[in-house]
């Protein structure tokens, strides 16, 4: 029985590895996409290619928020990440500041129908949804952070 218990503990530790790897891959990829989007919007690159680069971030972010809505575990994981790393680090790593998004929004709302995707147009709304999902305390710490605004 003792052997079984030892074996089960080893299994628990071993099976934790893919979970950690998964989180790292997800966060690295979102960070990379955020950097690309910031670069494109910052240089006012609203060409087809520039917008496509920015779209990668907005699509990924809204996909993650949708998944968070469906899964308590993902919510818990994100909350833990914010608590551990702090609002400053979380905002600068994963959240595209609203002021940057506003630059993009100005281009989108030019003459004629909106020129951007729903993920871009509704970014502020999706971000608010994200704040609702993480709870008031954490949300207010992110809302007050300069890197998120």
């Amino acid at each position, binding site marked *: *029985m003792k052997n079984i218990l030892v074996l089960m503990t080893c*299994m*628990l530790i071993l099976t934790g590895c893919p979970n950690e790897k998964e989180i790292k891959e997800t966060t690295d990829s979102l960070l990379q996409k955020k950097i690309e989007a910031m670069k494109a919007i910052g240089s006012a690159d609203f060409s087809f290619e520039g*917008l*496509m680069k920015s779209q990668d971030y907005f699509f990924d972010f809204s*996909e993650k928020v949708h*998944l968070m809505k469906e899964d308590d575990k993902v919510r818990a994981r994100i909350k833990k990440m914010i608590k551990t790393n702090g609002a400053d680090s979380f905002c600068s790593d994963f959240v595209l500041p609203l002021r940057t998004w506003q630059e993009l929004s100005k281009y989108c709302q030019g003459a004629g129908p*909106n*020129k951007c995707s729903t993920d871009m147009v509704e970014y502020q709304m999706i971000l608010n949804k994200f704040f609702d999902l993480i709870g008031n305390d954490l949300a207010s710490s992110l809302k007050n952070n300069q890197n998120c605004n």
Partner: protein
Amino acid sequence: MKKIILLICLISTQVFAGDKTAIQLGDVVKRVSEKNYNVYENALKVYQAKTSIEKARADLLPRLNIWSIAKIIIDPASILDQMSDIAPFLVPANWFRLEEVKLLYLAEKEGYRALWGNEVHQAKILYGHLVFDEILLRHIQDSIVEMDRVHRIVKTREAFGGVKQGAARDIEIKILGLHEDEQNLQVLLKEERDQLSYVLGFSSDVELLLSPVPMPDFTNLKPIQSKEYEFRVLSMSPERRQFDHFLSALSQVKKEIEYSFLGSSSMSRGVAGGIFDNLPNGNGIGLGNGAALKIVDAQKELMKTQKLGVEETLKRQLRAVTNQFNSDVLNFNNFKRRVELSQDSKNALLRRIQLGENVDVLELSEVSRNQIQAETALIAVQFRTIIGFDRFNRLIFNEDYSMNPPVIDSLKGVKP
């Protein structure tokens, strides 16, 4: 007895007479969203995909039966054989399956949005065609009346030798041709009405009464630059976004194989997972895993190619729609001028007849035909412009298409 038979006849006429329902173009989106059979079917599929997430999550919890408990009591070491039943959460492949189910649910939702958009667009096109054909029918009927008038004049003149023999016969041939057009159009209208009532989810005995389509100010419409909307078309396209979700799900499939040495998953990928059914599962620390990963990589490449195909098709569709729309907008004044000129020509000839001048009646029938054609072309271009702009809105998911299709709870009348 006679009275009773009469009463029965009266009641049966009332019972079997089709209901008449008045609808407007504005009702089409709501009606398609709530009553269209295909939309409802797909809403149910999305509901199944969403519920698959709950199922996959529940499958991570222990699932025991009396025989497995008995086996463990007799032989505690057998607990290791039944690890996937006793502690499915210890098998990483199961978590990846859960992630796949969630991503496939998002893909299913996109598929549903595409289908809903297409059904709404089809219904709006049908509505537009129906109203256009009704106008055309009235136009043909008016033309028949007018040609009859010309025919009478020609017949009288022919009797008195004012026109060459056979002129009345030639005009009668044209009138018969118009009657033929009238009959064909009436048959087409019945077919279109049936198709529209089906798309709008009405029962077959309902007769639809359509309100006119509100016409925009065509002279104020501006051409659309297709290049400016290429990004929006691609980024909003549910067909393309579906592939993005599939590609995300494929990354999970790959991880599932990589970690299969900790056990493989027997969980279903849900209703939307059918497209991955042919992909191999990991089989522990086996030599087949390398090949299985290559198969998944190839599948990823295949889907990227399909996504590229979708993108190129969408770009071409956008260009075709905007080219036609821009051409119609720029040429609208020509169509209008053509109607004015043909009307002037006909009125001038009629005035000359009234003044007793000797007018070539065949010329009069030709002028009348020109006017009919010019008016028909103007109406056709107006409807083509409306439908073209709606197609553009469907491509960029604008206006009526900007909302999300209804979920099953709201379709069943339950608050979601």
